[in-house]
Protein backbone atom coordinates (compact mmCIF):
# COMPACT_ATOMS: atom_id res chain seq x y z
CA UNK A 1 0.00 0.00 0.00
CA UNK A 2 1.55 3.24 -1.19
CA UNK A 3 0.13 5.99 1.02
CA UNK A 4 -0.20 9.45 -0.54
CA UNK A 5 -1.94 11.16 2.39
CA UNK A 6 -3.70 10.49 5.67
CA UNK A 7 -6.98 12.32 5.25
CA UNK A 8 -8.73 11.59 8.53
CA UNK A 9 -7.40 10.40 11.89
CA UNK A 10 -9.07 8.65 14.83
CA UNK A 11 -10.67 11.78 16.28
CA UNK A 12 -11.78 12.92 12.85
CA UNK A 13 -13.51 9.61 12.16
CA UNK A 14 -15.25 9.78 15.51
CA UNK A 15 -16.48 13.32 14.80
CA UNK A 16 -17.81 12.23 11.41
CA UNK A 17 -19.75 9.36 12.98
CA UNK A 18 -21.16 11.64 15.69
CA UNK A 19 -22.39 14.08 13.07
CA UNK A 20 -23.92 11.32 10.94
CA UNK A 21 -25.69 9.85 13.97
CA UNK A 22 -27.29 13.26 14.59
CA UNK A 23 -28.20 13.63 10.92
CA UNK A 24 -29.88 10.22 10.88
CA UNK A 25 -31.97 11.13 13.93
CA UNK A 26 -32.78 14.56 12.55
CA UNK A 27 -33.90 13.31 9.17
CA UNK A 28 -36.00 10.50 10.61
CA UNK A 29 -37.34 12.57 13.50
CA UNK A 30 -35.92 10.21 16.09
CA UNK A 31 -34.96 6.56 16.03
CA UNK A 32 -38.41 5.04 15.75
CA UNK A 33 -38.68 2.38 13.07
CA UNK A 34 -34.96 2.55 12.18
CA UNK A 35 -32.70 -0.45 11.68
CA UNK A 36 -28.98 -0.46 10.85
CA UNK A 37 -27.41 -2.76 8.29
CA UNK A 38 -23.65 -2.76 7.82
CA UNK A 39 -22.02 -4.12 4.70
CA UNK A 40 -19.26 -6.60 5.20
CA UNK A 41 -16.51 -6.03 6.13
CA UNK A 42 -15.90 -2.51 7.42
CA UNK A 43 -19.48 -1.28 7.13
CA UNK A 44 -20.33 -3.79 9.84
CA UNK A 45 -18.03 -2.06 12.34
CA UNK A 46 -19.09 1.43 11.28
CA UNK A 47 -22.74 0.45 11.75
CA UNK A 48 -21.91 -0.89 15.20
CA UNK A 49 -20.39 2.46 16.16
CA UNK A 50 -23.39 4.36 14.80
CA UNK A 51 -25.59 2.07 16.88
CA UNK A 52 -23.64 3.10 20.00
CA UNK A 53 -23.72 6.83 19.06
CA UNK A 54 -27.46 6.74 18.51
CA UNK A 55 -27.90 4.94 21.81
CA UNK A 56 -25.87 7.66 23.56
CA UNK A 57 -27.99 10.40 22.01
CA UNK A 58 -31.44 8.88 21.95
CA UNK A 59 -31.21 6.07 24.48
CA UNK A 60 -32.46 3.46 22.02
CA UNK A 61 -30.45 0.49 20.78
CA UNK A 62 -31.31 -0.03 17.13
CA UNK A 63 -31.36 -3.54 15.65
CA UNK A 64 -28.12 -4.20 13.77
CA UNK A 65 -27.62 -6.59 10.87
CA UNK A 66 -24.75 -7.52 8.60
CA UNK A 67 -25.08 -7.97 4.87
CA UNK A 68 -22.75 -9.90 2.57
CA UNK A 69 -23.43 -9.08 -1.06
CA UNK A 70 -20.96 -11.42 -2.76
CA UNK A 71 -23.72 -13.60 -4.20
CA UNK A 72 -25.37 -10.55 -5.81
CA UNK A 73 -22.33 -9.15 -7.57
CA UNK A 74 -22.37 -8.70 -11.33
CA UNK A 75 -18.67 -9.15 -11.97
CA UNK A 76 -18.23 -12.94 -11.70
CA UNK A 77 -17.58 -13.17 -15.40
CA UNK A 78 -14.94 -10.47 -15.54
CA UNK A 79 -12.98 -10.99 -12.35
CA UNK A 80 -10.06 -13.36 -12.24
CA UNK A 81 -10.31 -14.10 -8.57
CA UNK A 82 -13.28 -15.93 -7.11
CA UNK A 83 -14.57 -13.86 -4.21
CA UNK A 84 -14.90 -15.48 -0.82
CA UNK A 85 -18.50 -15.55 0.33
CA UNK A 86 -19.59 -15.21 3.91
CA UNK A 87 -22.84 -15.19 5.80
CA UNK A 88 -25.36 -12.37 6.02
CA UNK A 89 -26.64 -11.97 9.53
CA UNK A 90 -29.98 -10.20 9.69
CA UNK A 91 -32.00 -11.73 12.51
CA UNK A 92 -34.87 -9.25 12.51
CA UNK A 93 -37.69 -8.49 10.10
CA UNK A 94 -36.94 -5.55 7.79
CA UNK A 95 -40.49 -5.31 6.41
CA UNK A 96 -41.89 -1.78 6.77
CA UNK A 97 -38.68 -0.60 8.46
CA UNK A 98 -36.49 2.36 7.58
CA UNK A 99 -33.16 0.75 6.80
CA UNK A 100 -29.91 2.66 7.20
CA UNK A 101 -27.39 0.90 4.95
CA UNK A 102 -23.82 1.59 6.06
CA UNK A 103 -20.66 1.17 3.99
CA UNK A 104 -17.18 2.66 4.01
CA UNK A 105 -16.51 3.98 0.49
CA UNK A 106 -18.92 4.84 -2.32
CA UNK A 107 -17.29 4.52 -5.73
CA UNK A 108 -18.98 3.04 -8.82
CA UNK A 109 -22.20 2.29 -6.97
CA UNK A 110 -22.20 -1.36 -8.01
CA UNK A 111 -21.81 -2.75 -4.51
CA UNK A 112 -24.73 -0.63 -3.35
CA UNK A 113 -26.77 -1.88 -6.31
CA UNK A 114 -26.16 -5.47 -5.25
CA UNK A 115 -26.92 -4.57 -1.62
CA UNK A 116 -30.29 -3.13 -2.67
CA UNK A 117 -31.12 -6.35 -4.51
CA UNK A 118 -30.02 -8.41 -1.53
CA UNK A 119 -32.12 -6.37 0.91
CA UNK A 120 -35.21 -6.80 -1.26
CA UNK A 121 -34.78 -10.56 -0.84
CA UNK A 122 -35.01 -10.14 2.92
CA UNK A 123 -38.26 -8.21 2.77
CA UNK A 124 -39.85 -4.92 1.77
CA UNK A 125 -38.48 -2.07 3.85
CA UNK A 126 -40.45 1.17 3.77
CA UNK A 127 -37.26 3.04 2.93
CA UNK A 128 -33.54 2.43 2.48
CA UNK A 129 -31.15 5.27 3.26
CA UNK A 130 -27.50 5.05 2.33
CA UNK A 131 -24.81 6.13 4.78
CA UNK A 132 -21.29 6.33 3.45
CA UNK A 133 -18.07 7.46 5.12
CA UNK A 134 -16.27 8.54 1.96
CA UNK A 135 -17.71 9.42 -1.44
CA UNK A 136 -14.86 9.28 -3.95
CA UNK A 137 -16.86 9.92 -7.12
CA UNK A 138 -16.74 8.01 -10.45
CA UNK A 139 -20.26 6.65 -10.25
CA UNK A 140 -21.34 4.19 -12.95
CA UNK A 141 -24.93 3.88 -11.73
CA UNK A 142 -27.52 6.48 -10.66
CA UNK A 143 -26.93 6.04 -6.93
CA UNK A 144 -26.32 8.72 -4.29
CA UNK A 145 -25.80 8.65 -0.53
CA UNK A 146 -28.16 10.18 2.05
CA UNK A 147 -25.43 10.66 4.64
CA UNK A 148 -21.85 11.36 3.58
CA UNK A 149 -18.87 11.52 5.89
CA UNK A 150 -16.51 13.19 3.47
CA UNK A 151 -16.54 13.99 -0.22
CA UNK A 152 -13.10 13.21 -1.56
CA UNK A 153 -12.76 13.60 -5.34
CA UNK A 154 -10.14 11.13 -6.53
CA UNK A 155 -8.46 10.22 -9.76
CA UNK A 156 -8.85 6.71 -11.14
CA UNK A 157 -5.32 5.71 -10.16
CA UNK A 158 -5.98 6.58 -6.54
CA UNK A 159 -7.90 4.62 -3.94
CA UNK A 160 -9.45 5.38 -0.59
CA UNK A 161 -8.63 3.02 2.28
CA UNK A 162 -10.75 3.31 5.37
CA UNK A 163 -9.36 1.49 8.39
CA UNK A 164 -11.22 0.57 11.53
CA UNK A 165 -9.71 -0.36 14.86
CA UNK A 166 -11.71 -3.59 15.18
CA UNK A 167 -10.48 -5.01 11.88
CA UNK A 168 -7.32 -3.16 10.85
CA UNK A 169 -5.96 -2.08 14.24
CA UNK A 170 -6.37 1.66 13.65
CA UNK A 171 -8.98 4.29 12.83
CA UNK A 172 -8.05 6.33 9.76
CA UNK A 173 -8.85 7.22 6.18
CA UNK A 174 -5.97 7.14 3.70
CA UNK A 175 -5.54 8.22 0.11
CA UNK A 176 -3.37 5.58 -1.56
CA UNK A 177 -2.06 4.79 -5.01
CA UNK A 178 -4.19 2.14 -6.72
CA UNK A 179 -2.67 -1.32 -6.82
CA UNK A 180 -1.81 -2.41 -10.34
CA UNK A 181 -4.31 -4.98 -11.51
Amino acid at each position, binding site marked *: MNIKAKLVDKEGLDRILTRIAHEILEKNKGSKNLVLIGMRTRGEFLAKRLQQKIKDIDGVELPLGVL*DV*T*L*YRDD*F*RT*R*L*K*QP*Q*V*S*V*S*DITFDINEKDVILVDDVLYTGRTVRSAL*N*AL*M*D*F*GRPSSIQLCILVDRGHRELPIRADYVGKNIPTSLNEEIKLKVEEYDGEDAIYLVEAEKK
Partner: protein
Amino acid sequence: MPLSSRHLLGLQGVPKEDIQLILDTAITFREVLERPIKRVPTLQGKTIVNLFYESSTRTRISFELAEKRLSADAINFAVSTSSVNKGESLKDTVRNIEAMKVDMVVIRHAAAGTPLMLTKLCDANIINAGDGIHEHPTQALLDMYSIREKIGRLEGLKVCIVGDIAHSRVALSNIFGLKTMGAKVSVCGPSTMIPKYIQDLGVDVIYNIDEAIQENDVLNVLRIQLERKAREYFPSIREYIKYFGITSERLEKNKKDILILHPGPINRGVELSSDVADGPYQIILQQVTNGVAVRMAVLYLLGTLN
Protein backbone atom coordinates in the same frame (compact mmCIF):
# COMPACT_ATOMS: atom_id res chain seq x y z
CA MET B 1 -9.02 -19.42 -3.36
CA PRO B 2 -10.86 -21.32 -6.09
CA LEU B 3 -11.28 -25.09 -6.29
CA SER B 4 -8.38 -26.98 -7.81
CA SER B 5 -10.57 -28.82 -10.32
CA ARG B 6 -13.34 -27.64 -12.64
CA HIS B 7 -15.29 -30.87 -12.18
CA LEU B 8 -16.50 -32.80 -9.17
CA LEU B 9 -16.13 -36.45 -10.11
CA GLY B 10 -15.46 -37.93 -6.69
CA LEU B 11 -13.68 -37.23 -3.44
CA GLN B 12 -10.75 -39.54 -4.07
CA GLY B 13 -7.66 -37.36 -4.27
CA VAL B 14 -9.55 -34.10 -3.67
CA PRO B 15 -7.32 -31.92 -1.46
CA LYS B 16 -8.37 -30.98 2.06
CA GLU B 17 -8.47 -27.27 1.14
CA ASP B 18 -11.11 -27.94 -1.53
CA ILE B 19 -13.36 -29.91 0.81
CA GLN B 20 -12.91 -27.24 3.47
CA LEU B 21 -13.83 -24.52 0.96
CA ILE B 22 -16.99 -26.34 -0.13
CA LEU B 23 -18.09 -26.96 3.47
CA ASP B 24 -17.38 -23.35 4.49
CA THR B 25 -19.16 -21.95 1.44
CA ALA B 26 -22.17 -24.13 2.22
CA ILE B 27 -22.63 -22.23 5.50
CA THR B 28 -23.44 -19.12 3.45
CA PHE B 29 -26.04 -20.96 1.42
CA ARG B 30 -27.51 -22.54 4.52
CA GLU B 31 -28.26 -18.97 5.62
CA VAL B 32 -29.85 -18.18 2.23
CA LEU B 33 -32.20 -21.14 2.76
CA GLU B 34 -33.49 -19.54 5.96
CA ARG B 35 -34.50 -16.30 4.20
CA PRO B 36 -38.04 -15.44 3.18
CA ILE B 37 -36.86 -15.34 -0.45
CA LYS B 38 -34.61 -18.34 -0.83
CA ARG B 39 -32.93 -17.26 -4.03
CA VAL B 40 -29.78 -15.42 -5.02
CA PRO B 41 -28.90 -14.27 -8.55
CA THR B 42 -25.40 -15.71 -8.55
CA LEU B 43 -25.63 -18.15 -11.48
CA GLN B 44 -27.98 -16.06 -13.58
CA GLY B 45 -27.56 -16.96 -17.24
CA LYS B 46 -25.94 -20.33 -16.59
CA THR B 47 -27.63 -23.43 -17.94
CA ILE B 48 -27.38 -26.68 -16.06
CA VAL B 49 -28.64 -30.05 -17.27
CA ASN B 50 -29.55 -32.80 -14.85
CA LEU B 51 -28.87 -36.04 -16.67
CA PHE B 52 -30.35 -38.82 -14.58
CA TYR B 53 -29.95 -42.26 -16.08
CA GLU B 54 -30.94 -43.85 -12.78
CA SER B 55 -33.96 -43.20 -10.64
CA SER B 56 -33.60 -40.67 -7.86
CA THR B 57 -35.89 -38.43 -5.87
CA ARG B 58 -33.79 -36.80 -3.19
CA THR B 59 -30.65 -36.10 -5.16
CA ARG B 60 -32.44 -34.89 -8.28
CA ILE B 61 -34.82 -32.59 -6.43
CA SER B 62 -31.97 -31.38 -4.26
CA PHE B 63 -29.84 -30.47 -7.28
CA GLU B 64 -32.79 -28.91 -9.05
CA LEU B 65 -33.62 -26.77 -6.03
CA ALA B 66 -29.99 -25.77 -5.61
CA GLU B 67 -29.83 -24.72 -9.26
CA LYS B 68 -33.06 -22.73 -9.08
CA ARG B 69 -32.04 -21.05 -5.86
CA LEU B 70 -28.89 -19.85 -7.57
CA SER B 71 -31.05 -18.53 -10.45
CA ALA B 72 -29.52 -20.89 -13.01
CA ASP B 73 -31.65 -22.33 -15.79
CA ALA B 74 -32.17 -25.98 -14.92
CA ILE B 75 -33.16 -28.60 -17.45
CA ASN B 76 -34.19 -32.05 -16.38
CA PHE B 77 -33.54 -35.07 -18.44
CA ALA B 78 -35.28 -38.24 -17.48
CA VAL B 79 -34.30 -41.32 -19.40
CA SER B 80 -37.85 -42.63 -19.55
CA THR B 81 -39.06 -39.72 -21.70
CA SER B 82 -35.94 -39.18 -23.79
CA SER B 83 -34.45 -40.43 -27.03
CA VAL B 84 -32.41 -42.93 -25.05
CA ASN B 85 -35.45 -45.11 -25.60
CA LYS B 86 -34.89 -44.77 -29.32
CA GLY B 87 -31.39 -46.19 -28.92
CA GLU B 88 -29.32 -43.00 -28.75
CA SER B 89 -25.95 -43.55 -27.12
CA LEU B 90 -24.82 -41.56 -24.09
CA LYS B 91 -22.08 -40.01 -26.19
CA ASP B 92 -24.52 -38.72 -28.77
CA THR B 93 -26.95 -37.51 -26.14
CA VAL B 94 -24.23 -35.51 -24.43
CA ARG B 95 -22.86 -34.07 -27.67
CA ASN B 96 -26.35 -32.96 -28.63
CA ILE B 97 -26.99 -31.39 -25.27
CA GLU B 98 -23.67 -29.60 -25.45
CA ALA B 99 -24.54 -28.24 -28.87
CA MET B 100 -27.38 -26.45 -27.11
CA LYS B 101 -24.79 -24.45 -25.12
CA VAL B 102 -24.92 -25.90 -21.66
CA ASP B 103 -22.55 -24.74 -18.90
CA MET B 104 -22.78 -27.58 -16.42
CA VAL B 105 -23.93 -31.20 -16.40
CA VAL B 106 -25.05 -33.09 -13.32
CA ILE B 107 -24.96 -36.79 -14.11
CA ARG B 108 -26.16 -39.96 -12.46
CA HIS B 109 -25.48 -43.21 -14.23
CA ALA B 110 -25.38 -46.90 -13.34
CA ALA B 111 -21.92 -47.30 -14.87
CA ALA B 112 -18.93 -46.21 -12.80
CA GLY B 113 -16.71 -43.73 -14.61
CA THR B 114 -19.42 -42.12 -16.72
CA PRO B 115 -18.76 -38.61 -15.30
CA LEU B 116 -15.06 -38.96 -16.10
CA MET B 117 -15.93 -39.97 -19.64
CA LEU B 118 -18.15 -36.89 -20.01
CA THR B 119 -15.26 -34.58 -19.11
CA LYS B 120 -13.54 -35.86 -22.24
CA LEU B 121 -16.61 -35.46 -24.43
CA CYS B 122 -17.64 -31.91 -23.65
CA ASP B 123 -16.50 -28.60 -22.21
CA ALA B 124 -19.12 -28.22 -19.51
CA ASN B 125 -18.35 -28.57 -15.79
CA ILE B 126 -19.32 -32.11 -14.78
CA ILE B 127 -20.75 -32.99 -11.39
CA ASN B 128 -21.11 -36.61 -10.39
CA ALA B 129 -24.48 -37.30 -8.77
CA GLY B 130 -23.66 -40.99 -8.34
CA ASP B 131 -21.95 -43.35 -10.76
CA GLY B 132 -22.65 -47.04 -10.23
CA ILE B 133 -20.94 -48.34 -7.11
CA HIS B 134 -18.09 -45.87 -7.47
CA GLU B 135 -18.70 -42.45 -5.88
CA HIS B 136 -21.43 -40.04 -4.81
CA PRO B 137 -19.39 -37.02 -3.76
CA THR B 138 -22.15 -34.52 -2.93
CA GLN B 139 -23.76 -37.04 -0.57
CA ALA B 140 -20.48 -37.46 1.31
CA LEU B 141 -20.00 -33.68 1.39
CA LEU B 142 -23.43 -33.15 2.89
CA ASP B 143 -22.80 -35.94 5.40
CA MET B 144 -19.56 -34.24 6.43
CA TYR B 145 -21.29 -30.86 6.58
CA SER B 146 -24.04 -32.28 8.80
CA ILE B 147 -21.56 -33.96 11.14
CA ARG B 148 -19.51 -30.78 11.39
CA GLU B 149 -22.62 -28.67 11.98
CA LYS B 150 -23.72 -30.96 14.80
CA ILE B 151 -20.39 -31.80 16.48
CA GLY B 152 -18.26 -28.85 15.36
CA ARG B 153 -15.36 -30.73 13.79
CA LEU B 154 -14.34 -33.71 11.67
CA GLU B 155 -10.71 -34.01 12.68
CA GLY B 156 -10.15 -36.92 15.06
CA LEU B 157 -13.80 -37.98 15.00
CA LYS B 158 -14.59 -41.69 14.87
CA VAL B 159 -17.08 -42.48 12.14
CA CYS B 160 -18.40 -45.93 11.25
CA ILE B 161 -20.19 -46.67 8.00
CA VAL B 162 -22.70 -49.47 8.51
CA GLY B 163 -24.29 -51.76 5.93
CA ASP B 164 -23.58 -52.82 2.39
CA ILE B 165 -20.13 -51.34 1.90
CA ALA B 166 -19.36 -53.37 -1.22
CA HIS B 167 -22.20 -51.92 -3.30
CA SER B 168 -22.25 -48.40 -1.90
CA ARG B 169 -20.98 -45.31 -3.64
CA VAL B 170 -21.96 -43.33 -0.54
CA ALA B 171 -19.58 -45.44 1.55
CA LEU B 172 -16.66 -44.95 -0.80
CA SER B 173 -17.08 -41.18 -1.09
CA ASN B 174 -17.49 -40.92 2.67
CA ILE B 175 -14.32 -42.91 3.26
CA PHE B 176 -12.26 -40.71 0.91
CA GLY B 177 -13.68 -37.46 2.22
CA LEU B 178 -13.61 -38.26 5.92
CA LYS B 179 -10.08 -39.66 5.74
CA THR B 180 -8.89 -36.48 4.01
CA MET B 181 -10.51 -34.39 6.73
CA GLY B 182 -8.71 -36.32 9.46
CA ALA B 183 -11.51 -38.51 10.78
CA LYS B 184 -10.96 -42.10 11.85
CA VAL B 185 -13.15 -44.24 9.62
CA SER B 186 -14.35 -47.79 10.10
CA VAL B 187 -16.90 -49.96 8.34
CA CYS B 188 -19.34 -52.49 9.76
CA GLY B 189 -21.56 -55.05 8.04
CA PRO B 190 -21.95 -58.70 7.13
CA SER B 191 -18.64 -60.10 5.88
CA THR B 192 -20.23 -60.77 2.48
CA MET B 193 -20.81 -57.02 2.11
CA ILE B 194 -17.34 -55.88 3.12
CA PRO B 195 -14.94 -55.69 0.15
CA LYS B 196 -11.84 -57.81 0.56
CA TYR B 197 -9.25 -55.05 0.25
CA ILE B 198 -11.14 -52.30 2.07
CA GLN B 199 -8.38 -52.07 4.72
CA ASP B 200 -6.06 -50.81 1.99
CA LEU B 201 -8.03 -47.56 2.11
CA GLY B 202 -6.99 -47.16 5.72
CA VAL B 203 -10.29 -48.12 7.37
CA ASP B 204 -10.91 -50.62 10.15
CA VAL B 205 -13.43 -53.40 9.74
CA ILE B 206 -15.83 -54.22 12.56
CA TYR B 207 -18.16 -57.22 12.24
CA ASN B 208 -20.10 -56.65 15.44
CA ILE B 209 -22.61 -53.82 15.50
CA ASP B 210 -22.52 -53.46 19.29
CA GLU B 211 -18.80 -52.89 19.13
CA ALA B 212 -19.29 -50.36 16.31
CA ILE B 213 -21.76 -48.42 18.47
CA GLN B 214 -19.46 -48.43 21.48
CA GLU B 215 -16.35 -47.38 19.59
CA ASN B 216 -17.68 -44.53 17.45
CA ASP B 217 -18.96 -40.96 17.67
CA VAL B 218 -20.96 -41.17 14.46
CA LEU B 219 -22.73 -43.97 12.58
CA ASN B 220 -23.50 -43.41 8.92
CA VAL B 221 -26.07 -46.13 8.27
CA LEU B 222 -26.52 -47.15 4.64
CA ARG B 223 -29.65 -48.41 3.02
CA ILE B 224 -29.82 -52.09 2.24
CA GLN B 225 -30.20 -51.81 -1.51
CA LEU B 226 -32.72 -54.50 -2.26
CA GLU B 227 -32.83 -53.38 -5.91
CA ARG B 228 -29.12 -54.17 -6.21
CA LYS B 229 -29.73 -57.78 -5.19
CA ALA B 230 -28.64 -57.14 -1.61
CA ARG B 231 -30.77 -60.08 -0.52
CA GLU B 232 -28.27 -62.52 -2.02
CA TYR B 233 -25.63 -61.52 0.52
CA PHE B 234 -27.33 -62.59 3.73
CA PRO B 235 -29.70 -65.44 4.58
CA SER B 236 -32.77 -63.37 5.42
CA ILE B 237 -33.82 -59.83 6.21
CA ARG B 238 -34.79 -61.03 9.69
CA GLU B 239 -31.27 -62.21 10.25
CA TYR B 240 -29.83 -58.92 9.01
CA ILE B 241 -32.05 -57.03 11.45
CA LYS B 242 -31.02 -59.33 14.27
CA TYR B 243 -27.29 -58.82 13.72
CA PHE B 244 -26.99 -55.37 12.17
CA GLY B 245 -30.31 -53.54 12.59
CA ILE B 246 -30.01 -50.47 14.79
CA THR B 247 -32.69 -50.28 17.44
CA SER B 248 -33.09 -47.95 20.40
CA GLU B 249 -32.53 -50.88 22.80
CA ARG B 250 -29.22 -51.53 21.13
CA LEU B 251 -28.19 -47.87 21.32
CA GLU B 252 -29.20 -47.57 24.96
CA LYS B 253 -27.43 -50.76 25.92
CA ASN B 254 -24.14 -49.70 24.39
CA LYS B 255 -23.80 -45.98 24.50
CA LYS B 256 -26.00 -42.99 25.00
CA ASP B 257 -24.33 -40.33 22.96
CA ILE B 258 -24.06 -41.08 19.26
CA LEU B 259 -24.97 -39.33 16.04
CA ILE B 260 -26.82 -41.30 13.37
CA LEU B 261 -26.88 -40.39 9.69
CA HIS B 262 -28.71 -42.09 6.86
CA PRO B 263 -28.58 -41.06 3.20
CA GLY B 264 -32.20 -42.14 2.62
CA PRO B 265 -34.50 -43.61 1.55
CA ILE B 266 -34.84 -45.61 4.77
CA ASN B 267 -36.01 -49.19 4.89
CA ARG B 268 -37.86 -48.70 8.15
CA GLY B 269 -37.43 -51.67 10.46
CA VAL B 270 -34.45 -53.01 8.50
CA GLU B 271 -31.24 -51.00 8.90
CA LEU B 272 -32.91 -48.59 11.34
CA SER B 273 -35.87 -49.35 13.55
CA SER B 274 -38.68 -46.86 13.23
CA ASP B 275 -38.12 -45.31 16.67
CA VAL B 276 -34.43 -44.71 15.86
CA ALA B 277 -35.31 -43.23 12.48
CA ASP B 278 -37.51 -40.66 14.24
CA GLY B 279 -35.49 -40.54 17.43
CA PRO B 280 -33.21 -38.04 19.13
CA TYR B 281 -29.90 -39.40 17.80
CA GLN B 282 -30.58 -39.01 14.10
CA ILE B 283 -30.24 -35.94 11.86
CA ILE B 284 -31.71 -37.49 8.73
CA LEU B 285 -33.91 -34.55 7.75
CA GLN B 286 -31.22 -31.98 8.55
CA GLN B 287 -29.05 -33.92 6.10
CA VAL B 288 -31.66 -33.32 3.41
CA THR B 289 -31.80 -29.58 4.10
CA ASN B 290 -28.03 -29.34 4.23
CA GLY B 291 -27.86 -31.25 0.95
CA VAL B 292 -29.38 -28.30 -0.91
CA ALA B 293 -26.89 -25.88 0.68
CA VAL B 294 -23.90 -28.12 -0.06
CA ARG B 295 -24.98 -28.59 -3.67
CA MET B 296 -25.45 -24.83 -4.02
CA ALA B 297 -21.89 -24.41 -2.76
CA VAL B 298 -20.54 -26.92 -5.29
CA LEU B 299 -22.48 -25.35 -8.16
CA TYR B 300 -21.41 -21.85 -7.11
CA LEU B 301 -17.75 -22.74 -6.77
CA LEU B 302 -17.61 -24.57 -10.10
CA GLY B 303 -19.98 -22.24 -11.96
CA THR B 304 -18.09 -19.04 -11.14
CA LEU B 305 -14.65 -20.40 -12.01
CA ASN B 306 -13.20 -18.65 -15.00
